[in-house]
């Protein structure tokens, strides 16, 4: 029975990691449902973006208060997690603070963790106040009701609890406190717990230790179900982001083929398809469901942490329109999750559920309210591009369904017939010079 703790720990650790890996595989499978797009070019720029924007938090401080607090939480999260290494070794081999042989350096590390834990705790409390007391509008848009709102709060509570557990785990560690090596913060908590008899103190310490590692494993596995995947996906997302000028929209490849054929004087419109040529269904124009989007757009959807910087800078949203770029990303993810679950339930194959991203999730009213101003793209701290999804869906509405607003149909007809969006005579194009 002596090893029971270690066995339980090993099982917990294994289960926690296995479940996480299972979800990561599902995540990858879902992202791969997207169309192919080549983002393997310009590697140097891509690495550079990843280092600057994700690792270096380059865009976060554009909003200084939330940016600085976020950097504290980010740095704290990354550095304090070094401690997890020790926890795992201790847990598996029944040691206690196995790394303490490093002496002064160990003290320095733990001391740093403790200071960061307090800073993180402080930041997270400010975050909570910003959401719940100051009620910053971007946390209260209409898409932030129900789970999305609670999800944000759960994450904050998680972090508060984990940091508190870490500090109290150290405070109740009698030996650690006596060693006075790195207990820079916990020494002030120690007097509060000192009254307990040593054996009780030991059990409290053990409880906090278990809760701490348990909490970390639960948090790890909550990620997939939460908006918090950005702590992992921000890296690939910034790496694979669009590198072209933001005003450059893709030229639809399907249309390109057709237009080239139309413009080619030698093309025979009645020619039978050549041997080996694809005779399958003609490709669909634009996107009406998640599987019509490319995998980078789907990766974007999983990366979104629903901070709402995009929506708070969107001219349509600021003037009370239905459109919210954040909601576009959330709805894309919700639909993608639904499609993924459908595939899981039907033995690996998608069974038509009579639903799609368009109409069932994103309405034409939202899509038509966009001014394509790129404010959302510019704002996103992890290089998400909601505009590309909006444009792909407009293409479907116009080219597959002829469902543009009437005034736009007139504009497009004018361009086709008169070479201008208004009904003017082409021959009058130069009249301005004599007026």
């Amino acid at each position, binding site marked *: 029975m002596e090893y029971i703790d270690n066995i339980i720990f090993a099982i917990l650790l294994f289960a926690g990691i296995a479940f996480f890996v299972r979800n990561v595989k599902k995540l990858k499978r879902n992202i791969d449902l997207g169309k192919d797009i080549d983002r393997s070019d310009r590697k140097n720029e891509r690495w550079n973006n990843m280092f600057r924007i994700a690792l270096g938090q380059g865009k976060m401080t554009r909003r200084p208060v939330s940016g600085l607090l976020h950097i504290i939480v980010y740095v704290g999260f990354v550095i304090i997690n070094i401690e997890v290494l020790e926890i795992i070794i201790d847990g598996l081999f029944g040691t206690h603070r196995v790394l303490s042989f490093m002496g002064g350096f160990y003290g320095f590390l733990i001391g740093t963790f403790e200071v960061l834990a307090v800073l993180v705790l402080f930041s997270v409390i400010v975050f909570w106040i910003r959401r719940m007391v100051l009620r910053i509008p971007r946390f209260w848009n209409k898409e932030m009701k129900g789970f999305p709102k609670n999800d944000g709060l759960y994450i904050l509570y998680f972090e508060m609890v984990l940091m508190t557990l870490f500090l109290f785990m150290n405070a109740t560690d009698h030996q650690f406190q006596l060693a006075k090596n790195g207990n820079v913060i916990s020494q002030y908590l120690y007097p509060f717990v000192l009254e307990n008899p040593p054996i009780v103190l030991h059990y409290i310490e053990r409880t906090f230790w278990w809760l701490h590692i348990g909490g970390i494993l639960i948090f790890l596995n909550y990620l997939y179900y939460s908006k918090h995947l950005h702590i992992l996906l921000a890296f690939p997302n910034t790496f694979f982001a669009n590198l072209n000028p933001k005003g450059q929209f893709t030229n639809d490849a399907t249309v390109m083929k057709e237009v080239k054929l139309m413009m080619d004087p030698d093309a025979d419109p009645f020619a039978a398809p050549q041997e080996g040529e694809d005779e399958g269904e003609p490709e669909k124009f634009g996107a009406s469901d998640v599987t019509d989007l490319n995998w980078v757009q789907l990766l974007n959807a999983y990366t979104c942490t629903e901070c709402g910087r995009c929506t708070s800078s969107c*001219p349509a949203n600021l003037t009370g329109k239905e459109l919210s770029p954040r909601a576009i990303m959330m709805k894309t993810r919700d639909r993608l999750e639904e499609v993924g679950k459908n595939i899981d339930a039907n033995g690996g194959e998608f069974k038509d559920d009579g639903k799609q991203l368009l109409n069932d999730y994103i309405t034409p009213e939202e899509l*038509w309210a966009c*001014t394509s*101003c790129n*404010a959302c793209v510019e704002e996103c701290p992890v290089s998400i591009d909601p505009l590309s999804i909006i*444009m792909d869906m407009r293409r479907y509405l116009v080219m597959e369904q002829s469902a543009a607003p009437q005034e736009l149909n007139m504009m497009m007809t004018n361009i086709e017939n008169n070479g*201008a969006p208004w009904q003017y005579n082409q021959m009058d194009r130069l009249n301005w010079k004599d007026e």
Partner: protein
Amino acid sequence: MNVPTMAEMMAQGKQPEVLFWVGSAGSYDDRAKKITRAFVKILNKANVDFAVLGTEESSTGDAAKRAGNEMVFQMQAMTNIEILNAYEIKKIVTCDPHSFNTLKNEYPELGGTYEVYHHTQYIQQLISEGRLELNGSMDNDRVTFHDPCYLGRANDEYESPRELIKRLGVNLVEMKRNKRNALCCGAGGAQMFKEPEKGDLDVNVLRTRDALKTNPKIIATGCPYCNTMMTDGVKAENKEESVEVLDIAELIANSENL
């Protein structure tokens, strides 16, 4: 006005140094035509050897593309590219950031690769080459500049228009939302051609309020569509008596008495 066309140039066996892409707004819209003429005055002042396509020019297709009609866009693009390539055009300047963006970024893949400039970039270049001199004769008027999305965020050009404005001896005051944080005027993405969706305010009014907070005498823009939206916004806020909306080309033409 001295405005040669490419056809005339070709007939004389000449090739201009730059093609002025007028754009549909600049050709037909009464307000935008003034911008076009102001820019031609500047080109003439600097003795730029330019030409226009005239009746051979057609919509770039930008508005159709942003509305989702890739088919109409690419048809327009291919037609324009055929003409531009037939005239062996190398360099293009335009007063319309939408044409600028489309010609510069979206035509190359379709076979049309040119050096494309927004007129503020081009004028700035004329000045740095010593071909044009501005003598800043405006008396420290308060001017605020509204960044067109398709010049600013879309193509990261924030400085050329500002450098030009500063040369005119005015007091350039920035709106709170400026440069990459600038708010759209509400015209982009084909919104110019349709009624807005239901909401509680029009985008151009919100943006005009941003501008009016700087207490300007002039709201400067670099886009014919922004110009229309801001002009309408100024009217909606009953400020048309005291605030003028002008393109940078007009500012220059006025201050240099062209």
